[in-house]
């Protein structure tokens, strides 16, 4: 048991769990406070909100008497897995960049470009000209390509001009948001068949038949029987692809010479250069890989066949992109950990929907929880030190506590913008 607790991985896991717990507790407290002060929400309503935050995934609605009911809800779990797919992919995207010493806050832009690339291809190839599977694959690959190009831009300006990648990413995000809106605006992919909704692009399951878009003639991701396992949900094989991607990233980063190079650049760019590693190429490459992963997440989400894209997005960026950051942070950039962190984030997502559906609260509380988790991740190092000290019970003198692990932060240095 002692050996187990001394493992570094265990400490990381514990500190992540602690972040999650704290985030949930903060969310619960916020719900309580709002409940107490709001005229519209009763105290029992507030208590329901708290319970949903912690166990919303197990909620099955309300019974005839209006009380919350609990149990295994296959639709919830299936939808959780479906929503986890893009989160795992963007989480991997952020994690790969992190390992190369880059903060990829550009995942939302890459995600949008992936959406653009995949939907454009999927909806533009007339149904029947190619096998559906091939169209799906082409669309997926084009999405990835668009993401790679978009990710490479901040990489290039960082490598060649030494511009802070965070700022470059933010700018490319907003450029992407406008570009995507523009492209769809001039396209004929706006959904005019289903008149009930405006502002959406056709689902990928629509196919072009004689110049008309017809339902169920397009492409959609294979279900592989998962829909029977979780009836009533949107789940499909995308989640399996995401898990495979995580394994692939794990192998890339830990077993290959390319991974060695990327990590060397991330840990010490100067030493990597000294050793003859082409640091600039690796920065661009890392961001391009990150772009592919984010875009693949978008492709998997929008090629599912039952999701539709709101195209006037120029004023907002997709949350799936930003939420890649907390996923990667929670997973401590471990690709396998990203799978679990992604599923957890998707669970919060479902919890948010349950809150909106069943109570006077809304889904934004889960974003607050996520923000708290990111905040705690920022000083996970300190949390880990606290955990370690608890176990050993050898409290060093007060002065020494202020010492970081040998200037861990200093070695990274500031970003020369």
């Amino acid at each position: 048991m002692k050996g187990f607790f001394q493992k570094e991985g265990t400490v990381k896991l514990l500190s992540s769990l602690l972040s999650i717990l704290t985030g949930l507790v903060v969310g619960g407290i916020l719900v309580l406070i709002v409940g107490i002060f709001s005229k519209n929400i009763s105290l029992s309503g507030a208590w329901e909100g708290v319970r949903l935050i912690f166990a919303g995934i197990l909620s099955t609605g309300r019974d005839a008497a209006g009380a919350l009911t609990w149990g295994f809800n296959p639709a919830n779990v299936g939808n959780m897995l479906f929503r986890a797919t893009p989160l795992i992919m963007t989480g991997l995207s952020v994690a790969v960049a992190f390992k190369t010493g880059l903060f990829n806050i550009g995942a939302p832009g890459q995600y949008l470009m992936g959406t653009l690339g995949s939907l454009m291809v999927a909806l533009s190839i007339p149904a029947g000209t190619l096998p559906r599977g091939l169209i799906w694959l082409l669309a997926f690959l084009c999405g990835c390509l668009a993401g790679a190009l978009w990710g490479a831009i901040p990489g290039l300006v960082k490598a060649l001009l030494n511009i802070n990648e965070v700022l470059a990413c933010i700018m490319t995000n907003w450029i992407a948001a406008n570009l995507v809106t523009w492209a769809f605006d001039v396209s004929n992919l706006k959904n005019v068949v289903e008149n009930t909704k405006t502002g959406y692009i056709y689902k990928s399951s629509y196919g072009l038949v004689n110049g008309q878009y017809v339902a169920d003639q397009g492409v959609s991701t294979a279900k592989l029987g998962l829909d029977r396992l979780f009836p009533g949900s949107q789940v499909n094989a995308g989640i399996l692809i995401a898990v495979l991607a995580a394994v692939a990233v794990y192998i890339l980063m830990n077993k290959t010479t390319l991974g060695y190079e990327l990590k060397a650049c991330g840990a010490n760019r100067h030493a990597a250069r000294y050793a003859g590693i082409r640091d600039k190429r690796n920065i661009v490459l890392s961001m391009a890989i990150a772009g592919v992963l984010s875009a693949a997440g978008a492709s998997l989400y929008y090629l599912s066949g039952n999701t539709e894209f709101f195209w006037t997005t120029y004023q907002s960026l997709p949350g799936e992109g930003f939420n890649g950051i907390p996923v990667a942070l929670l997973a401590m950039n471990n690709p396998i950990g990203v799978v679990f962190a992604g599923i957890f984030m998707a669970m919060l997502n479902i919890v948010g929907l349950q809150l909106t559906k069943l109570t006077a609260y809304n889904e934004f509380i889960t974003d607050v929880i996520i923000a708290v988790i990111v905040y705690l991740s920022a000083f996970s190092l300190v949390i880990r030190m606290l955990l370690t000290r608890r176990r050993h019970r050898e409290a060093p003198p007060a002065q020494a506590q202020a010492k970081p692990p040998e200037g861990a932060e200093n070695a990274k240095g500031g970003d020369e913008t």
Partner: protein
Amino acid sequence: MENASEYVIEMLHITKEFPGIKANDDITLQLKKGEIHALLGENGAGKSTLMSVLFGLYQPEQGEIRKNGQVVRINDPNDATALGIGMVHQHFQLIDVFTVLDNIVLGAETTRMGFLQKKEARRKVEELSRRYGLAVDLDARVEDITVGMQQRVEILKMLYRDNEILIFDEPTAVLTPQEINELMNTMREFAGEGKSILFITHKLNEIMAVADRVSVLRKGRYIGTVNTADTDKRQLSNMMVGRDVQLEVVKTPASPGEEVLRLEHFSVPSHLHKRNAVNDVSFSVRAGEIVCISGIDGNGQTELVHGITGLDRPNGGTVTLCGENITHDSIRRRGKNMSHIPEDRHKHGLVLDFTLEQNMVLQRYLDPEFQRAGFIRQDAVRSYAERLIEQYDVRSGQGPVTVARSMSGGNQQKAIIAREVDRDKPLIIAVQPTRGLDVGAIEYIHAQLVSERDRGKAVLLVSLELEEVMSLSDRILVMYEGELVGELDPRQTNVQELGLYMAGAKRNIGEGGSAT
């Protein structure tokens, strides 16, 4: 009962512990009024910790500090300043983008309603600067002035605060022998006026030249205090290291063979200014000799090495290595025939967050020995690292899987040397290979370099330590302001002459001329 004590500052029985080590163990240091007192010890002997205690940066677990016999408590640098204690730090504590005047007044500003009043300050600094002959340009930015002037700024900072107790931490490392003499004269002048001086160093010559008394520390312990008049260098070095030290490097005369490295009219641009950092330099290094580039820090040595190794792009001239023109080759291709022990082991030498074994293959992970089809052969890396650790006696907590960051400085440097020497290339470039290490590690590294020379390697050494230059090299090239100004034979020159070349006062190589 004023001046009950003959000592202005006493640090009595100071003990300061960090987790795992006692940095100071029952140390006593007593400073008399008007004396120059040397504090001698190797790197890691506890000198810096002791000074941090004196400045209130650390609180000791045991012991007390007295000023003029009265016990005082020092909680932060402000308390130390209030007691009249000032210090010239080894790494200057200056703000590069501020002017000299702003640097001097910072922390002791004269203000009216919060607004800075610089006129008065300027008058006071100008007067001090005249009185002690400490010439500085008050309106220049610190980043634009020479290292020597920066040190004068540091001294003026102490004088501006009317400090009576002046501490100099390794002040001579960055100076020419002539500047060192000037500094010592200034120190004597201060002592003559009744100021008390604590002079921290590990250089025995300087202690013998200027100090009245010496206190010696070793591995966190107090060894003793002696009058300089009653001792000699041999006794002091014995006290410092705890055993007899081989002060001289044992080596046979060199027998140079074929030319390995040749530079012709080589120039490298500067990152800091518009002129070239290395300007029109020509020389060559042959197999079986140690050629040393000597000079004051910042005269282009770093850029010269970066230009040769490919870390910086040259803007003129050629580099020929083993008969091939490598002027525009990539860093990796140059590495085919040279190994490089870099100046900054934390910046360039190691990936501190990698394990020791990962660091050992930093240049070689692409060799067929260590990878197959892009996948790293973990077992081959492991056994290779184990061999190097064994062969070069690199000590670490967990062997090959130790994270480099957790190793001691000496063993980090040994790991780099093991890696570079084992690559077995015709040229070894070693830049300040012994900086910051203790005597044992220095002896080891010197012996390694000499034995590589004897195996027929060409060694290009860059060093700021004059003693190292004199004892290790077969040929000395002196760099001044980016140019080679002198070629000297260590057996036929002395430190004073070398100093004149380093200060640019003498040159025996014409402009654009070459040393062979």
